[in-house]
């Protein structure tokens, strides 16, 4: 019984951390603050993955999102502002229409998701998933795996080509 309460406390901790820092990403004025709030969102989602028994995915989230995508976004923030103006402001426009749309979307999603009768049953076992995921990727999902690697290659070469300075 005590254990169950503990599990709930940890879940709500991660959920509140995720949503609160995502709200900071959306509403904060300072872009650097947005980027660091995004860090905590990714941490929170990784914690929720671990909560769902997806250990490999939690580690992947930390490595790729926090180590890769977030650093890339920070580079984007730094490179697109003059470094001497330290007020990296990001204004909002159409604030209230956007807020209305977001609340409407959330209301719709929450109603539908809570009303639907999902086939839901708790799986008791929490096995490590890394070996099974590797096996699935190399057997059932080998074609999507290769296509994804080609896609990454194309995207990175394309990105390098787009930002290259053209010397005429």
């Amino acid at each position, binding site marked *: 019984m005590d254990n*169950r309460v503990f599990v*709930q406390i940890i879940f709500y901790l991660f*959920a509140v951390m*995720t*949503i609160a820092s*995502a709200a900071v*990403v*959306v509403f904060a004025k300072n*872009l650097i603050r*947005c*980027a660091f709030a*995004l860090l905590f969102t990714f941490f929170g*989602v990784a914690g*929720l993955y671990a*909560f*769902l*028994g*997806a250990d490999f*995915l939690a580690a*992947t989230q930390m490595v790729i*999102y926090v180590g890769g*995508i977030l650093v*890339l*976004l920070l*580079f984007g923030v730094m490179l*697109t502002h003059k470094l001497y103006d330290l007020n990296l402001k*990001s*204004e909002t*426009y*159409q*604030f209230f*229409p*956007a*807020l209305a*749309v*977001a*609340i409407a*979307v*959330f209301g719709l*999603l*929450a109603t539908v*998701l*809570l009303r639907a009768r*999902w086939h*839901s*049953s*708790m799986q008791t076992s929490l096995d490590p*998933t890394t070996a099974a*995921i590797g096996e*699935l990727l190399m057997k059932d*999902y080998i074609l*999507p795996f290769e296509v*994804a690697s080609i896609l*990454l290659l194309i*995207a*990175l070469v*394309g*990105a*390098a080509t*787009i930002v290259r300075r053209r010397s005429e």
Partner: protein
Amino acid sequence: MIGLGHFLIVSAALFSLGIMAVFARKNAVNVLMGVELILNSANLNLVAFSRFSAHNLNGQIFAIFVIVVAAAEAAVGLAIVLSMYRIIKSVNLDRADTLKG
């Protein structure tokens, strides 16, 4: 007990916050952050259904592919933002209106 619904609500909240960022922010990098929030919420749904409904790992595999596509998207998106900054000296999305008739 923490069930499927809890995760779906967290994911719906993340999704609507991402929509809000995409609609309301002026800075292009900030819009990309909103897109990352949306992708994360979709991933959370996939993993939650994979655990509670399907009892297999297919949802997690999908989540891995979503992460791969998100990395590609971030790279290309930031490249576009950087070249936009080089051309119009701003990342304000309202200023990117050269195609407007």
